[in-house]
């Protein structure tokens, strides 16, 4: 497997507090990796360590298969916490500074990137007069300036209206599909993240508690066969005796939830009908994405 980022037990300690605790992350090439965690879980601190803004106390970071981080970080674009832009300057001036800092000599590099993020028409406008969405897009333009292979985005859709969120989502998908850029993105808006992410990492209290692919997520969410029948006692007997099912519950009258042998839905239905049970409903049920994430994050609301 070709990985853009791998970390091995990366830890960051502030005083006695372990902000990031032994995180081992794996970001595949070409992936959009959704990094999920509550406020203060350690997402931003972890991203700052990968981006070189903070030093890890323990552990190793490997970028593009190399531990020469300073060299490899030239291939990374970042938008962490807020876009680093000068409010008193225009969008074009902000990018002219970045252009000089990176020693880019292409004459129309600024024009190209501004057009890509849809800010060319507003290039002369001072950034302080920009909307939140425009500022985020300018931040993305800065992150994209050196044609990075890997983008690290910390809550890029925070504070945006639905239209702004859609704009950024489309832009990220465009970058991933057209330029093949790998993206590590954190967000609180889980529904939105689930529309673009191909992989997920869940961080809780500084620890990476799970890593999985988007396909796995669907399977994990669908966790029980829900049966609504006319005779629950008879149905339960059939399930136990004919199919050997013991992991089930009856949350309400005539409703049975089966938590095992989920690949035997047809057999369940057949045996129940043959046993004289009328089935009103039978379907694979589970949690919605948000509910599943909440459970992984440790319950409660995502404040």
């Amino acid at each position, binding site marked *: 497997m070709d990985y853009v980022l791998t970390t091995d037990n990366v830890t960051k300690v502030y005083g006695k507090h372990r902000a990031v605790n032994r995180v081992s992350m794996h970001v595949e090439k070409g992936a959009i990796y959704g990094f999920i965690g509550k406020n203060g879980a350690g997402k931003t601190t972890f991203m700052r360590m990968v981006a070189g803004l903070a030093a890890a106390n323990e552990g190793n970071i490997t970028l593009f298969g190399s531990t020469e981080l300073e060299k490899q970080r030239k291939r990374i674009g970042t938008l962490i916490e807020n876009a680093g832009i000068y409010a008193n300057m225009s969008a074009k001036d902000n990018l002219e500074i970045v252009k000089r*800092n*990176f*020693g880019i000599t292409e004459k129309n590099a600024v024009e190209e990137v501004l057009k890509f993020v849809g800010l060319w028409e507003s290039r002369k406008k001072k950034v302080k007069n920009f909307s939140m969405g425009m500022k985020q897009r300018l931040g993305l333009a800065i992150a994209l300036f050196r044609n990075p292979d890997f983008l690290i985005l910390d809550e890029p859709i925070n504070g945006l209206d639905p239209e702004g969120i859609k704009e950024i989502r489309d832009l990220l998908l465009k970058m991933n599909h057209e330029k093949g850029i790998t993206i590590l993105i954190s967000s609180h808006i889980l529904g939105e993240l689930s529309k673009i992410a191909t992989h997920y990492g869940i961080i809780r209290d500084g620890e990476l508690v799970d890593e999985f692919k988007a396909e796995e997520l669907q399977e994990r969410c669908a966790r029980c066969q829900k049966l609504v029948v006319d005779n629950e006692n008879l149905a339960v007997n059939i399930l136990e005796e004919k199919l050997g099912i013991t992991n089930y519950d009856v949350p309400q009258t005539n409703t049975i939830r089966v938590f095992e042998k989920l690949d035997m839905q047809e057999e369940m239905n057949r045996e129940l009908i043959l046993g004289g049970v009328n089935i009103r409903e039978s379907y694979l049920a589970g949690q919605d994405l948000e509910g599943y994430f909440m459970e992984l994050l440790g319950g409660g609301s995502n404040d």
Partner: protein
Amino acid sequence: MINLMRGELYKLFKSKCFYVCSIVLVSFVLLMYGMFSLVDMVDKEEAAMAGNVGITVSVETNMPEELPIWEQMGVIDLVQMMFSSMGSLLIAIFASVFVCSEYTCGAIKNIVGKGYGRGTVFLSKYFSSIVGAILIELLMLGTILMCELLILHGNRLSGEFFAALAEYVAIQLMLAAAQTGVIVMLNQFLRSLGAGIAVSVCLIMFYPIVTAVINALLQYLKVTINVNKYWVVDMISECPTTNITGKIWGHNVLWSMVWIVLTIAVGILHYRKADVK
């Protein structure tokens, strides 16, 4: 490093604080010349009027006759006054804003961790701040010379004066670079606009209190060192305008270099490990 310097200089010439500090300093020079011109006019009018109207009462004293204002205050004295007061203060404010604004708006994240060493990032900011400070001081000097030409028709600008001025300005610019270095280093520690400006202004305005305390402490410890002789802000105000001997040159060059090297070393050492937010 060259790329970063190019970026920093672009930022410098687009920076509002660079122009605001320059304009404030130029305005002060103009205000000072305007004030002295008015005083001169009033003096001349009073002299012309003396004895012409009403009764003039004079008391004979041994006091020497007061000289005209332009004779009391030579060009180089004005240059010294501006370098050691407003010049010193405004370049400190400029450097504070120029350094701290990087952290306030978060733009430092566009450089740090982008393939440049932390030391290089620190040095690019350090030297670009010095360039900005020197440009502000030169603009102030240019305004003084312009005022001399326009108001006093260049009567006081002799070849001898320019020779003395060149020597004095060279030392002052060197000391200004060292002072800017101290301010840049402090602001790289503080990284907060308000705190940075407050500390820098206090350092320039109230340093005699600090040096007095240190001197008293040293005296108590029976160490015969006067720290004022080595503190860069004090050196700016104490630098003589004429008869600059080799010893004075040597002292100023040596201690400017000491402050520059010291602030670079401490700054880089701190910045190498510091987290950037």
